[in-house]
């Protein structure tokens, strides 16, 4: 039995933040959950999908986040409590839908949107604080401080959403979503949902439906009034509290992960008697009356939050509206430079800020020990760079691309986007990616480059995308290229799974989120329907793939498509649990240092399964790491590598 389906109220379990969010939605009696995979949000839908049949809920992976939000909205319109979960980049994709759902009515079901930020870009390519979008779109927003609170807030938001008829949002971050913590479970309701759409055509009022944000100004006014009601509710929310002395020398106001770090910082600095903490969970709209009461407690305010000074700015707005004779408070935080507005928040950053503001000295470690530690770190500890997994089809694909571009000789290059394959920005993919932005932007950028012929542009352009990205947002860019007759080659790196985020299925896999068979939508059928020439090849066949790609490098006024198809090695290995081949190096054939190949297999092809025997001066296979794919056999100029029969 999975931990999050345990029906024993009061029992404590060690849950991942994302599992706690999934549990919160179950405790609220959820009916439908949707999303698109994205770190650090994926496990919310993964967890619910694994339980869908048992718990009679419907769970799906959307083709992209915009559609996922709309699927959840449809359910809410028909009275079913629904959840949608995504990473912050996903909200950018979905925001067009959300912007028009927000001022309208979401129906009786309720729709909770969980958005995971990734401060520090640990699994992302930019930093972005989604709380700004919640404010812009007038969406009530809560921010949890640990997995327990993430569960409670998720559950509570379903009630608020259904009551107010609006989308409600939970902002989580990597250190909440991917932290594990002790979570006390609540009761699991066994609700029987019945779906019915109640806004059917009414001849008396034919133009009126609440599932539409029109007339715009009137609905905007209603939305503003709704936020006032929500603000009033937030004034007495149990997610906000104060702890500390009645008259603190410094008031620390914090939210999210900042609360737990601030508590620890105060403890380590022994400031319990001097610093008070106002912990806020209801972040937008801010409960102004509550905040005003606490702002009167101290003249120095330190605001601790992760990423933008969002709470800080909101607090400054409140402070600006204090009575004219109120004493002037000084704000410390991101605007004052005491805490970084970029990168992850860490307890050490809060300790440093507190010590600076209060004029304390804090040494994490005695100076001599710290100096020695730094010396040893610099002397012996190396950075571990990223690499494609042993046996990854992408290594072979980028080897093919690199060689085809070199043989072509016209300074061709690759545009890229988001997925495992973006590691080709680094040495493991031979530095082949020269541009990388958002999902689908490889084809979009290539479509633009492919129209520059009239300005003398004649370099071959190759766009690469993964299979999941192809369905998510490459398709419109490809259609754009066809319609506008752009000259580029699209390579779809089809490994039949959304690998980077945890091996979720996609429209090409032939399996739904909940494991049912469905008809795979093939990439070649879509491309052929656009009248495009499509070639399919196996990247492990280096020679044939290179020749195929070279032939597709030119095509005048239409994009060409090459599908490099080979299953993700991790998926294969999980299923087959053995290597396809035993790979061996014949030391008699390997010329080693004297070869002139410059350790080609080891240093250039650079698969982690190949190692160098310094004593013998020859290449060697690391049995524990080699996946047995055999691609390196074709890389060795002396045919020293072979499959053992």
């Amino acid at each position, binding site marked *: 039995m999975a931990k999050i389906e345990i029906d024993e109220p009061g029992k404590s379990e060690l849950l991942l933040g994302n599992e706690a969010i999934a549990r919160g939605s179950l405790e609220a009696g959820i009916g439908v959950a949707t999303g698109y995979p994205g770190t650090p949000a994926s496990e919310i839908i993964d967890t619910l999908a694994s339980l869908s049949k048992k718990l009679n809920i419907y769970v799906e992976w959307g083709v992209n986040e915009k559609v996922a939000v709309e699927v959840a909205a449809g359910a809410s319109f028909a009275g079913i409590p629904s959840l949608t979960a995504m990473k912050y980049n996903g909200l950018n994709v979905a925001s067009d839908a959300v912007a028009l759902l927000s001022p309208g009515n979401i129906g009786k079901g309720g729709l909770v949107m969980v958005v995971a930020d990734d401060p520090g870009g640990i699994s992302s390519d930019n930093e972005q604080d989604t709380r700004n979008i919640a404010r812009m779109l007038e969406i009530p927003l809560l921010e949890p401080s640990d997995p327990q609170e993430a569960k409670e807030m998720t559950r509570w938001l379903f009630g608020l959403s259904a009551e107010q008829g609006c989308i409600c949002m939970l902002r989580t971050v990597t250190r909440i979503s991917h932290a594990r913590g002790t979570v006390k479970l609540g009761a699991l309701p066994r609700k029987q949902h019945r779906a019915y759409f109640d806004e059917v055509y009414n001849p008396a009022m034919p133009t009126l439906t609440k599932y539409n944000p029109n007339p715009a100004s009137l609905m905007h006014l209603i939305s503003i009034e709704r936020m006032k009601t929500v603000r009033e509710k937030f004034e007495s929310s149990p997610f906000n509290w104060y702890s500390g002395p009645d008259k603190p020398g410094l008031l620390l106001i914090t939210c999210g992960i900042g609360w737990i770090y601030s508590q620890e910082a105060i403890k380590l600095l022994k400031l319990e008697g001097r610093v008070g903490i106002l912990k806020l969970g209801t972040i937008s709209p801010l409960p102004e009356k509550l905040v005003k009461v606490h702002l009167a407690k101290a003249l120095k305010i330190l605001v601790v939050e992760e990423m933008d000074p969002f709470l800080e700015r909101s607090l400054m707005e409140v402070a600006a509206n204090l009575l004219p004779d109120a004493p002037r408070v000084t704000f410390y935080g991101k605007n004052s430079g005491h805490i970084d507005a970029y990168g992850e928040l860490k307890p050490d950053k809060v300790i440093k800020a507190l010590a600076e503001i209060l004029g304390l000295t804090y040494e994490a470690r005695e100076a001599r020990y710290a100096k020695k530690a730094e010396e040893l770190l610099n002397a012996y500890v190396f950075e571990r*760079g990223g690499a494609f997994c042993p046996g990854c089809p992408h290594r072979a694909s980028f080897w093919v691309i690199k060689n085809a571009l070199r043989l072509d000789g016209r300074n061709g290059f690759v545009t890229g986007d988001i997925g495992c394959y973006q590691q080709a920005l680094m040495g493991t993919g031979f530095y082949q990616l020269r541009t990388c932005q958002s999902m689908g932007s490889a084809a979009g950028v290539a479509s633009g480059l492919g129209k520059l012929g009239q300005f003398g542009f004649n370099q071959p352009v190759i766009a690469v995308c993964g299979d999941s990205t192809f369905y998510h947002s490459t398709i419109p860019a490809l259609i754009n290229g066809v319609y506008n007759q752009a000259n580029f080659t699209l390579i779809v790196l089809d490994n039949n799974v959304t690998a980077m985020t945890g091996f979720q299925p996609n429209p090409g896999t032939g399996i739904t989120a909940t494991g049912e068979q469905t008809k795979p939508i093939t990439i070649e059928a879509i491309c052929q329907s656009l009248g495009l020439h499509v070639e399919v090849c196996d990247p492990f066949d280096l020679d044939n793939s290179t020749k195929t790609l070279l032939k597709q490098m030119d095509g005048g006024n239409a994009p060409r498509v090459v599908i490099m198809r080979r299953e993700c090695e991790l998926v294969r290995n999980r299923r087959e649990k053995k290597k396809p081949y035993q790979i061996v190096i014949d030391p008699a054939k390997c010329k080693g240092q004297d070869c002139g190949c410059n350790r080609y297999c080891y240093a250039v092809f650079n698969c982690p399964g190949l190692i160098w025997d310094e004593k013998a001066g020859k290449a060697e296979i690391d049995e524990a790491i080699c996946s047995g794919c055999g691609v390196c056999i074709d890389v060795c100029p002396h045919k020293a590598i072979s499959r053992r029969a």
Partner: protein
Amino acid sequence: MTLTKDPINLLIAGVGGQGNVRMAEIVGSALLQSDYLVSIGDVLGGAQRGGSVASHIRISKETRYGPYIPEGQADIIVGMEPVETLRVVTKYGNPGTMTITSTRPISSVDIFGRRVNYPDLDLVFSSIREMSSKVWIIDAMGEALKLGKPIYANMILIGALIGTGLLPFNIKSMEPILIEAFGNEADTKNMSVLRKGIDLVKQ
């Protein structure tokens, strides 16, 4: 058993793919069974696969702690790879830190895709000793291979952690957790691997 201090800060460090996130979850679950408040944060280095991973485990009777151990506040460090052990010792260690480290090195490429020369192992171990109050150096992989499977190396290290007596749990409290994680059949073997780990620190 009571805690020698509150919270106890435990770090499990390794290389992505070795299984330290799972190890942290198993240790955390065992402590949660004894009614401790447990928080775990898995901190990744620059690389996703084959990169450094450190699981920060906070154990308290009093309150929930965050998923990050502040600098210099580690009480116990379990390293699954020598350089990874040294990495976290230099950042989170203090003169009182006690350290268990595995001996098997894992090589790497750097961010430019070039191979990194692995430092002399004896120098790595002497550095770890210099930064810790007590060190157990364990050939977990060698023992695991003797017992039949490389993956037992992780269970050897958990056994070693139990054997040090630094944490309020014992081999008995591990049994239900291992049954839940691996099923009954795997459990018998895992328990004997755990015992081997305990013996190794007691030698």
